[in-house]
């Protein structure tokens, strides 16, 4: 690592209404360096990077970027085009790819004059080929984006930035959607790229990868830069304390004897889009007082399993029993009545109705109850007081119970869903990626609530791509691969990782 500066953010500030998203944040980046930007949700990491990339205009401060000869030059703020030209590439958390284009076209987009009467596809193909060889980021150039996996799409995004000759690459939560193996590959690739002089800033929540792959760590809290530390001097406790301002409590979990079965699948088959995303004659039993973690690479039948248990899919063969009673008609209300509580994977899309208020979202699963409606009329007073109580109990913070649910942050949306589900005291809880994208505080809260439900006597079906989470919470771990379930009789990361990749332990 050399000591030449390539980027400096000077006292950047940004306010949204009355909320201060960034307060005079200054950060420097050096050539070939990997800087991890850490902070809880809402700490202002993404806002900061969006200012760097010109999506937002800062309220104050300036940015200097080194040009090709290494001289620092001020960046025109508020223009993505200027950032691109200065050699800054950004990979957003939500990818900005058009699904109807091919990989090559996606990379070409915006790289040529709009007035050219034809593409220089051949030259582009050669250049992308060279980049792929150098970095190890490979993906079929003629594939359609819509048919790629998430990991492949991310590679396209990085290739796109490198194709535009980015010297500084910004990755916003790059591993949030990746499997552990894909994440490791990504960081290997990043390592190769930094040897060529590329500088990288990546935003993350995951302490493990930050410690393993960054050179330096900057921590944001409430929009302020609260600390910078060389990774070699850091450990998990130090960083965690910087992020939340105090030591995080580890979730205590006591041993418990499993009770009666609450969910039983008997040679159940659910056909999905492909053989890989189906469930093939699986057996699974979850008991009361038990959390069963389903570990696996995404797209191996998890969604078929989740759809089945939430009543959105009907098994093609086999049986499903809830608390010993077989289910015949598979609809969400039937499952809900049978005692299933659902925490959906895509909480923004499937978990709430964004245009309805927080209070309404809290009663949406029990519209027949008499405290919600009488003779077909909503009982506004009881709905609102009910919402007040739940928001207090579950610490749902935001602009209030009458505000649209879409205005809540991801963590608070998840707390809203927890409140709604746990209030009904379900016997079986389907928790599908319950902490994906949440910060440590919110994730710990989810874990605490799941353990609380377990103590009360519920069974939990925990589907997660975060192996650490599965390891931390589960009484039993089951690996899902190619639509088959295999019990892992071990807590060893390595062994489970191999099973997830399809190698029988």
């Amino acid at each position, binding site marked *: 690592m050399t000591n030449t500066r390539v980027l400096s953010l000077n006292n950047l500030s940004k306010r949204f209404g009355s909320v201060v998203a960034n307060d005079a944040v200054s950060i420097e980046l050096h050539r070939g360096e990997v800087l991890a930007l850490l902070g809880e949700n809402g700490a202002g990491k993404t806002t900061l990077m969006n200012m760097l990339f*010109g*999506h*937002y205009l800062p309220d104050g401060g300036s940015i200097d970027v080194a040009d090709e000869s290494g001289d620092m030059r001020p960046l025109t703020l508020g*223009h*993505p*085009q*200027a*950032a*691109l030209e200065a050699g800054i590439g*950004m990979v*957003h958390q*939500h990818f*900005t*790819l*058009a*699904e*109807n*284009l091919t990989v090559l*076209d*996606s990379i*070409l*987009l*915006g*790289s*040529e*004059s*709009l*007035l*050219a*009467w*034809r*593409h220089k596809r051949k030259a582009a193909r050669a250049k992308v080929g060279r980049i792929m060889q150098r970095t190890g980021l490979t993906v079929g150039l003629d594939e359609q984006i819509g048919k790629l996996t998430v990991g492949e799409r991310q590679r396209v995004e990085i290739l796109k930035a490198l194709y535009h000759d980015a010297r500084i690459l910004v990755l916003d939560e790059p591993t949030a959607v990746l499997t552990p193996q894909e994440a490791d590959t990504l960081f290997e690739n990043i390592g190769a790229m930094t040897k060529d002089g590329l500088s990288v800033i990546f935003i993350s929540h995951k302490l493990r990868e930050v410690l393993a792959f960054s050179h330096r760590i900057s921590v944001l809290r409430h929009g302020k830069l609260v600390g910078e530390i060389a990774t070699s001097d850091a450990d998990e406790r130090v960083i965690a304390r910087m992020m939340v301002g105090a030591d995080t409590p580890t979730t205590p979990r006591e041993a418990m004897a499993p009770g009666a079965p609450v969910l039983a699948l008997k040679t159940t088959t659910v056909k999905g889009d492909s053989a890989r995303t189906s469930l093939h004659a699986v057996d699974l039993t979850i008991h009361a007082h038990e959390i069963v973690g389903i570990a696996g690479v995404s797209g191996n039948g998890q969604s078929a399993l989740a759809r089945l248990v939430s009543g959105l899919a009907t098994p093609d063969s086999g049986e499903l029993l809830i608390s010993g009673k077989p289910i015949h008609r598979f609809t969400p209300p039937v499952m809900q009545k049978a005692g299933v509580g659902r925490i959906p994977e895509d909480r923004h899309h499937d978990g709430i109705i964004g245009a309805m208020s927080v209070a309404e979202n809290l009663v949406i699963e029990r519209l027949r109850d008499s405290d919600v409606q009488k003779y077909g009329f909503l009982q506004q007073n009881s709905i609102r007081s009910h919402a007040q109580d739940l928001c207090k109990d579950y610490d749902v913070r935001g602009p209030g119970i009458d505000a649209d649910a879409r205005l809540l942050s991801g963590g608070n949306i998840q707390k809203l869903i927890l409140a709604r589900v746990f209030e009904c005291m379900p016997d079986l809880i389907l928790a599908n990626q319950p902490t994906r994208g949440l910060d440590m505080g919110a994730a710990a809260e989810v874990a605490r609530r799941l353990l609380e439900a377990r103590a009360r006597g519920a069974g939990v079906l925990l589907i997660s791509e975060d192996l650490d989470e599965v390891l931390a919470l589960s009484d039993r771990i089951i690996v899902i691969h190619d639509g088959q379930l295999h019990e892992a009789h071990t807590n060893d990361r390595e062994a489970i990782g191999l099973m997830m990749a399809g190698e029988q332990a």
Partner: protein
Amino acid sequence: MDILQILISDSFWAAALRIATPLIFGVLGALICEKSGVLNLGIEGIFAAGAMAGWMAVWLGAGLWGGLLVAALVGGFFGLIHAILTVPLGLSQHVSGLGVTMLATSVSYFTYRTALPQVSSPPKIVPFQPLDIPVLSDLPFVGPVLFQQTAMTWLALVMVALVWWVLNRTPLGLAIRAVGDNPDAVDAQGLSVYGLRIGAVVAGSALMALGGAFLTMSAFDSFFFGMVNGRGWICIALVIFASWRPGKALLGALLFGAFDAFQVRLQTEVGAFVPSQIFLMAPYVLSIFALVIVARRAEYPGALLKPWFKGQR
């Protein structure tokens, strides 16, 4: 003359291509708009405006090609209204489009009535004449079908190739396809979402207006009320039929032209037993059936109808 004879006659195929010509312009125009993510229901009115403006320009002394230019400019103007309402302001594309249709239709009739308050029979212009290309026009079958059409039909066919090329072979077309599927992708590359969409809607509307101008400047020689007669709406359906591909759009327009030419000829055969309305209805009914079959598999541009605002993601 039985059905088979109709289908192999050169006059039938020449009529099919002639009837298809305004639809080709219209469907290409609608396709460009929708590829960029904007549905343009102003098409029916822009047809009327193009028909009126082109014809009136020629009647006032402009040349035929000058008349087409005027028609395209007028179409582009109404397209700009629609684009400003729906792209930067993000209003409902349905409501704005229907509004533009009503506005453009009414303004056309109003202009016509104001300019010609007293006429009972509309004045005529000298329209585009059938081409007369030595040798080619005299070939059997292909001569009458292809080489005795007017220059506008050829312009329409050239436009099919041109639109295909621009959309699939140029950086501009790539940007238009991308902005209609995911505007964020375009924004992230520093391109202007608004600029691309407004440009596409204006260009598409100019093409639609040429379709209208064909009616008054090639198919007929004067302007009538109600002469567009739903052709714009047919184009909207044909875009879906074509799955947003220029080549298939040509095919769809020809298919509709053939239905229409066929029903006219069939009417003279069996018109004595079947009410004529059935025949008039037939092309539309068949279009609906064709649409039902094709459209179920249609892949809509991902961001069609969805407004996009800068700085919101």
